[in-house]
């Protein structure tokens, strides 16, 4: 076995009074892919940041090629060939793709930038991950999955010895993830050491050589990937068995009232003629490729962006939804797919975030802070939000816990119709199970639920009925036994359609 390139030895890390890593040991070897898995808040991201020198460890040692190092600045980590792709995007929104890819290491010819060369190389890196964005597009105009691909392209450009990827696939579709893994294979073959985290255990099984499981700030188990099944991994992470990930689907009564009926919904530039109905007790899945307009259609429905519809009915009443408050008044709620940009105020606390959307429910003229506190306590319990302290800045929560808080926030409005967009992005398998159960119970108690997800299994496991969108239109509807991966894909790409149409 080769010597480790990079190791953590008994690394502790505290934020103020809260210790989040309690003596972590990790070894990363050249030409090997190590998967770091664990529950939300277990300390994976923190451990990775310590590895890359983004955050100094409070105590313990970091060994590079067997030598103890202390990265005095980020620059040294990079100089040593260690590249980290953050869980949260690390791109400057106003800069273009090319500017971001070369940020901090611009190529120059003489005193001036060699823009042509940088553009050429950007294209090359992007082509390697099969991402078709123009290098001159500002990052703010990209979809989340394109941003992730740009992050990966950026990392590829840095010729890493050690590539650390924190949940790179959370916002990617299976197809995109497959492209990423091709690159990972190629890098592994050239002797790069790779570490990544993921909550998608199938991926871990597929791509990793070794697995390290973290729990509560410690590595509890490390094993070659052949020695662990997905179930074993899940059990090691969560500490209990999670084999029944999806709850049993309840039948929707044929005479259940229609809660929501949408007729001819147009969202200019994104979706056209979207019509569907949602019954009480039903979970309706919306599948489709990235860019098929699912998000925009639902945002348009909820008054979050400009849209018009021939007719929208809620509980049998025709309604006009022009702004978010209209939707909320009819107890129609939308959970955004982009928790960082649209979901949470990262520099505020959990309490403010939790109640922001439903503030009117907390007191009259003045906000009842006691009620808010109580709601937070309830949310923490119900959604198992793990934060070091109650008054933590939401930006300092782990990614998965942010997602849980976001879900809790939306639930504060007590929606009758809930639209969730990529609800389990970045959530660990144990909590996923809880969230699925939660959604299922919610449906069982007479609510209507729409689930948009790029995770095919999630849709198949949860939905009573599935709409498949393609290029802004509903391309097909599946129900019951007909909901299969193959059927969804067929509709999503259009049967026999030219594959170029994807993400048009």
């Amino acid at each position, binding site marked *: 076995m080769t010597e480790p390139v990079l190791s953590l030895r008994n690394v502790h890390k505290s934020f103020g009074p809260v210790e989040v890593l309690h003596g972590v040991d990790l070894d990363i070897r050249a030409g090997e892919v190590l998967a770091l898995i664990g529950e939300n808040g277990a300390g994976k991201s923190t451990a990775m940041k310590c590895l890359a020198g983004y955050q100094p460890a409070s105590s313990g040692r970091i060994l590079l090629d067997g030598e103890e190092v202390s990265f005095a600045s980020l620059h040294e980590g990079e100089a040593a060939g260690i590249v980290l792709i953050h869980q949260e995007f690390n791109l400057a929104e106003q800069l273009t793709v090319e500017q971001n890819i070369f940020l901090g290491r611009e190529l120059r010819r003489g005193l001036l930038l060699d823009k042509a060369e940088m553009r050429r190389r950007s294209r090359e890196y992007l082509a390697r991950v099969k991402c078709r964005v123009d290098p001159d597009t500002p990052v703010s105009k990209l979809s989340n999955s394109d941003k992730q691909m740009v992050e990966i392209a950026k990392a590829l450009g840095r010729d890493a010895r050690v590539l650390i990827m924190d949940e790179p696939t959370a916002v990617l579709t299976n197809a995109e993830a497959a492209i990423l893994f091709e690159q990972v294979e190629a890098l592994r073959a050239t002797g790069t050491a790779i570490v990544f985290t993921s909550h998608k255990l199938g991926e871990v099984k597929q791509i990793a050589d070794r697995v390290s499981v973290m729990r509560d700030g410690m590595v509890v188990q490390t094993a070659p990937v052949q020695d662990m099944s997905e179930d074993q991994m899940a059990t090691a992470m969560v500490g209990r068995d999670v084999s029944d990930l999806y709850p049993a689907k309840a039948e929707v009564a044929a005479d259940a009232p229609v809660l929501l009926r949408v007729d001819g919904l147009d969202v200019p530039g994104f979706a056209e003629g979207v019509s569907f109905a949602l019954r009480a007790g039903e979970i309706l899945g919306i599948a489709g490729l990235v860019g098929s307009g699912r998000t925009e259609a639902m945002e348009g429905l909820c008054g979050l962006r400009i849209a018009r519809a021939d007719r929208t009915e809620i509980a049998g009443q025709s309604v006009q939804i022009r702004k*978010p408050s209209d939707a909320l008044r009819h107890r129609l709620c*939308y959970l955004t797919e982009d928790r960082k940009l649209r979901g949470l105020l990262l520099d505020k606390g959990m309490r403010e975030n939790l109640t922001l959307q439903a503030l009117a429910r907390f007191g009259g003229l*003045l906000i009842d802070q006691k009620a808010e*506190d109580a709601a937070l306590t309830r949310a923490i319990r119900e959604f198992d939000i*793990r934060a070091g302290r*109650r008054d933590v800045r939401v930006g300092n929560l782990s990614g998965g816990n942010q997602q849980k808080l976001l879900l809790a926030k939306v639930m504060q409005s007590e929606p009758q119709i809930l639209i969730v967009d990529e609800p389990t992005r970045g959530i660990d398998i144990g909590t996923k199970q809880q969230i699925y159960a939660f959604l299922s119970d919610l449906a069982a108690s007479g609510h209507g639920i729409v689930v948009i997800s790029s995770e095919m299994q999630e849709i198949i496991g949860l939905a009573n009925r599935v709409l498949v969108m393609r290029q802004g239109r509903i391309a097909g509807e599946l129900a019951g036994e007909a909901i299969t991966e193959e059927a969804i894909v067929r509709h999503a790409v259009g049967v026999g359609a030219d594959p170029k149409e994807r993400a048009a």
Partner: protein
Amino acid sequence: MASETVNMPERRRKLPSMSVLGPVIALLVLVAIGAMMNPNFLGAGNITNVLARSAFIGIIAVGMTFVITAGGLDLSVGSMAAFIAGLMILVMNAALPVLGVGVPIILLGMATALIAGLLAGLLNGFLITTLGIEAFIVTLGTMGIYRSLVTWLADGGTLSLDFGLRTFYRPVYFDGILGVSWPIIVFALVVIIGEVVMSRARFGRHCAATGSSEHVAHYSNVNVNRTRLATYAMLGVLVGVATIMYVPRLGSASASTGVLWELEAIAAVIIGGTVLKGGFGRVWGTVIGVLILSLIDNILNLTDLVSPYLNGAIQGVIIILAVILQREAKAKG
């Protein structure tokens, strides 16, 4: 698992952070210096003077706190105050033959000020929110406009309230209840209401959310444009209130009224700990900022240690020091 620690709300009383203590300490140091330099400094007369003259900027700065918290800025407040004062004087003088000296005409003047303030604030807010123009440019523009208008109304000179009216209106600045003069009472009320709205009412939350992230606020059912518009309107009304207190003092308005009030108000807001880029504001901090600024002037007038030419330099140094105190400590804590 770690979740147990979560449900134990921290009840340990900790020392307030330096970002909270900083401005307070700066203020106390100034008071101590003042008291050492001049025995009259802590006299009732001087305290009343300082508080009463802080009231104008103070009332405006409370409104500015909301505007800045919601991610905006308003450079026009000084000119707006001058314009409103001029308008108020013109209206009252014009109504004098009809209404005569008495309470009705004062009420008319007050209504004029409040309505003019509201409209001016709405205009700023409209241009900024609905047309989506940078607040800096809009309010720089309206600053020039109001300043010009008052010069023009006054024909380059000074608009003066009719003498009889002035005598009648004067008590609004100089008298009060139980020895506390009206501007101080009104200032205190504005501050209390402002603090409550900022920290305990929905509107304050919405301002902070809007300033922190427009997108998130929008997705959280906050009407971002309306919130912004409301902060400007509120600031406009408060400029009107400040003007109502200002006019009885000297009974006049001219092109030089309210010059640089905008900078003073913004400085007070930031010294008080509100974040210029928006997202976080505190009204009580603003009050401390205003008092710090007024005290610097007051102390400089009460002592003659330095050449008056250097007053501005000392002011500058103290402003920076007051904020260093706060930030330095913050970095540590």
